[in-house]
């Protein structure tokens, strides 16, 4: 049985704040230091209008449906924060040889994951090596 459809107006709002900063410091003729990072906070919210009342004949004839619209908005709500920071250092052993070390850390906090589930997680990479110029 079909009784057509009804609709309500919705409002979708997304907000994103992002911040990034960095420092480059030449500590001495032999040492360079870097530090930088960024932070992103993003949210999306669906606001439902008032749904029309379901006609009595519909609930009588299609009693199998509960017509509860209270959680429809949650289906499209999104919220996550991402944080990245990296630091690095270079030490000159001579004019041609230097040692390098750096590290990167990234973290994602997903508060409303639904298609892929909660995608919160973090990853870090530590690197070190020697640079030779010739």
């Amino acid at each position, binding site marked *: 049985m079909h009784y057509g*459809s009804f609709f309500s107006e919705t409002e979708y709002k997304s907000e994103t704040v992002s911040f990034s900063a960095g420092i480059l410091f030449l500590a001495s003729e032999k040492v360079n230091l870097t530090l930088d990072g960024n932070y992103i906070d993003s949210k999306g919210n669906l606001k439902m209008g008032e749904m029309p009342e379901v006609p009595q004949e519909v609930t009588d004839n299609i009693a199998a449906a509960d017509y509860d619209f209270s959680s429809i908005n949650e289906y499209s709500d999104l919220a996550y924060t991402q944080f990245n920071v990296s630091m690095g250092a270079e030490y000159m052993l001579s004019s041609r040889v230097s040692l390098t070390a750096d590290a990167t850390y990234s973290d994602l906090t997903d508060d409303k994951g639904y298609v892929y589930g909660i995608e919160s997680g973090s990853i870090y990479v530590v*690197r070190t090596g020697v640079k030779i110029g010739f």
Partner: protein
Amino acid sequence: MKRPFLKFLIVAIAVLVLPFFSSSAISQEEPTSSIWSLWLGGHYTGYEDFYKKVGEFDRGEKEAMPEVSLSYSGYKEDQSWDFFGHYYDPKRISFDLSGKSKDVFSGKVSYLSSYRQRATDLLENLMAREAVNQENKPGGKMFTYEHENPDADFGYTRHEVKSDFQVKVPGSAKLKIKAFHRSILEKGDDQKVVSMHCSSCHMVSKSAKVDRRTHTVSAGAEATTGPVLFSYLGSYRTFKSEASTPVAFYDKAEHPTEKDSAKQEGYIKEFDARMVFNDEKVPFGQIPETEKMAHTLKVKTDMGKKGDILGSFTNSQAKNKSAGLKVQSNSGGLKYVVSPSQKTKIVALASLSRIESDEAQIDLPLWRDGLTGGGQDFDWIRYSNLTRTVAKGSAEFIYQPNRKYRVFLSTGYEGTERDDYPDIEAKGKTTKLKASVGGKYRPNSKFWGRIKYSFENIKDPAPYNQLFEASGDTLAKLWYFEREKLRYGDVTNQPTNQHGIDLTLNFRPDRRTSLSAGLRASLETNGDTDSLDFERTKLQPQVSATLAPTPEWNLFGSISYAYDKSNGLASVAMMDG
């Protein structure tokens, strides 16, 4: 193209290019500058919890890896060459080799590989079951899903090889020949989801091989005769998936809950007569093989005080070889730039494009063939919305009385006529009228600011869609195809009016400090539809600063905010199917 062919291609390009650098540079006297840099080291990657999103472009291996990079830069008189190579891990390797000789030859070859991890659509967000609140007795009709490969690790490696060569013909400094190449190969595994017929409300997640190959080659020439510059570029691109098309078993079309065998037999007969296929294995998600050929001609003339004219014409033909369909387009454009006085400048643009896309014949079996009230032939022709004629024109007037400020005013028109939209031969037309005004102010070397306001009026933006049938008693037996006729009203998220503002301010009080602030904002509205007064607001302010208080310290920072709000409709069907 097999993986060994990729290696062969890289080696072949290197073999072809390196002798040139050897003969043009290395075999001659030692370069006057030669800088090598080698970095040897390693890295360790670790992660916690779900890493496929935060490390989407990481290899996804928790381990230590050796790493190496090598760079070289050299020049001698009017010859120069550069190389950079980086091995990060087995799935992320890059190199870049470029050189230039006597302003006669320039070449560049590069290779880049990367890996993309793909998360799995859990399908858990698709939930539906009738009568969950009926005296704690759930009904039977429900949506179900399954994962054939629950532990699948989706992801694919991307290889990109590019080359770019330009040669001036010896003896003719006014003729230049160009050649470009680009190949993109993607290989791995990805998720495909099969959606069954509504009689079973069932979705199946499968693992499918990825083996996509895109190759583009371009060649052309550029010649100068007096004040006139001619150029031609021909481009050919192919795309093909070498992965076999996945196959899925589509459920038997039967009533999802009916247990009575006699009734079920009737349902099977009824549903089977409505469907093109069921209860059998069917290929799905086929990726079409495509190719595109394009020719572009450009002419540019410098007429001195009378201005510059740039004309261009492009012909292209794209083919879907798998379906036997093609899209042809021809477009021409003219640009005229003239300065009537030292303080004024006019830029005028005009273009006309014609795109023709093949229609597709959709062949279907008779609907409910052999059943009472059935036998309808729903074969139809899909006319493409892409078939259209687009005409554009604009003019911009710029006035700069002195170095301190400049103002501009522009206006434009864009008309798009679609041959078969919304219906065949309807020639639905969207007309855009555009205007913008702005200026730039620079009172001194420490400050400059720019502001621009734009307005666009759009008549009949496409597409408009109709709402489902209205609420009411439609208990009379109607088939789904009959319900299409009951759609009503219009709704769209495309604006008829659009206002925009773009503001940028820059302040540099001294050589060590710079500050920048900007704001972008827009308001889109459409009050022409009967079901929704559409409105969308976007706002994006940003501030950034750099500071170098001493030669040892360099600091920078920025903050931005993005706001986007729009309205729409949520529609709910009242049905028990």
